[in-house]
């Protein structure tokens, strides 16, 4: 699987959304991306990429697009 596929799958699993919904998706933008969903997303991404994100990065992870920038810090190019 490519990094993009891994990344997208984590969102789809965490929030029950479709591929087409991903662009522009934001924290608190849909009911399932609340603080509970957020921590689910984080642990799915950490498992998929075998990384551990810093607390500050978890907080800055505010949208689908922003998340790609953050993962780049962990040398994961989406």
């Amino acid at each position: 699987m490519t990094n993009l596929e891994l990344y997208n799958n984590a969102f789809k699993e965490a929030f029950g959304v479709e591929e087409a919904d991903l662009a522009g998706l934001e924290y608190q933008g849909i009911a399932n991306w609340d603080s509970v969903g957020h921590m689910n997303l984080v642990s799915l991404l950490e498992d998929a990429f075998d990384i551990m994100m810093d607390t500050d990065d978890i907080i800055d992870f505010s949208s689908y697009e922003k998340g790609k920038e953050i993962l780049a810090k962990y040398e994961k190019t989406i």
Partner: protein
Amino acid sequence: MVNYDEILSIPPYSMDKDQKHTFLTGVLKELSAHHYENCEGYRRIIDGLSYDIAATESYYDLPCLPVRLFKEYELRSIAEDSVVKTMTSSGTTGQQVSKIFLDREASANQTKTLTKIVSSYLGSTRLPMIILDTSAIVKNRAMFSARGAGILGFQMFGRDKIYALNENMELDVEGLTAFLEKHKGEDIFLFGFTFMIWQHFYEELKKSGYRPDLSRGILIHGGGWKKLVDKKVSPAEFKAALRDVCGIQRVYDYYGMVEQTGTIYMECECGHLHASIFSDVITRRASDFSVCEKGEKGLIEVVSVLPKSYPGHALLTEDEGIVLGEDDCPCGRKGKYFSILGRIKNAEVRGCSDTYATKFK
């Protein structure tokens, strides 16, 4: 308007008394004007007191609302459709609960502030985490109790989390044993509410004879002492008892309330609760609400820079406490340090662990 990104870039214990006074007066005055504009209930209170917000020279002079008001009225300074989260205090059945309305910005800023404060104790690396509570607590995602919000907020600092209690509030010995085996030699972060820890963790460990090795554990707990005071358990005994059953050395209490979620007061290595620059405590004499001297027992007022979606930036609590000093705690953190003595007489039972405890009477 208040710039939270700028505020949150300031280290939480970095300002001395005068700097903090200027800073908080500026922010809290702006917030008061904001609520005056946007919350009719708040405007009527301020007008009723004939208070002139623009003339405020010190945040000590701002009118503070009794926390009870949030039970009786739905106070908010945002449009109803921008509410993304409603938090409630942990009232017992039959008690009225406070309702706190948050928009996206307010909710995000609470999390960010909590992170700034707690990271100064735990660091920014996330530790394996044991939640000393039941997973049943965070079931309803839209309606957060204070206990659920506390658990969720602190999850940010953990990874590979487990709940120590199952849905029936029984200790998950098997789960804990496997978890500790997996994380042998690592620091472990534990979080829970004071009474819950006593009743369902300490008492169960004592009874069962199971002795997990938590000598590398760091426990943060909060939610009220009242029920343990009734059981004649002091903070020192609480720590000693836990050390006896699981070897844990680092145990920190915190003081906070759902009406000002995010700006909590953490206990330092010297056993004192500390105010960060994002909030403050003022002790007041019950007779005339004048400000107490250092070392004098009084009613606690709390102010916080966070409440923007509801007028909760200056509140009179129903707790009593003593300010022990300012800027000179041996732990090195600046700001006021204090201790909480408990709830005033005839006040309601509240606090995350205390309301739960009424079931055990």
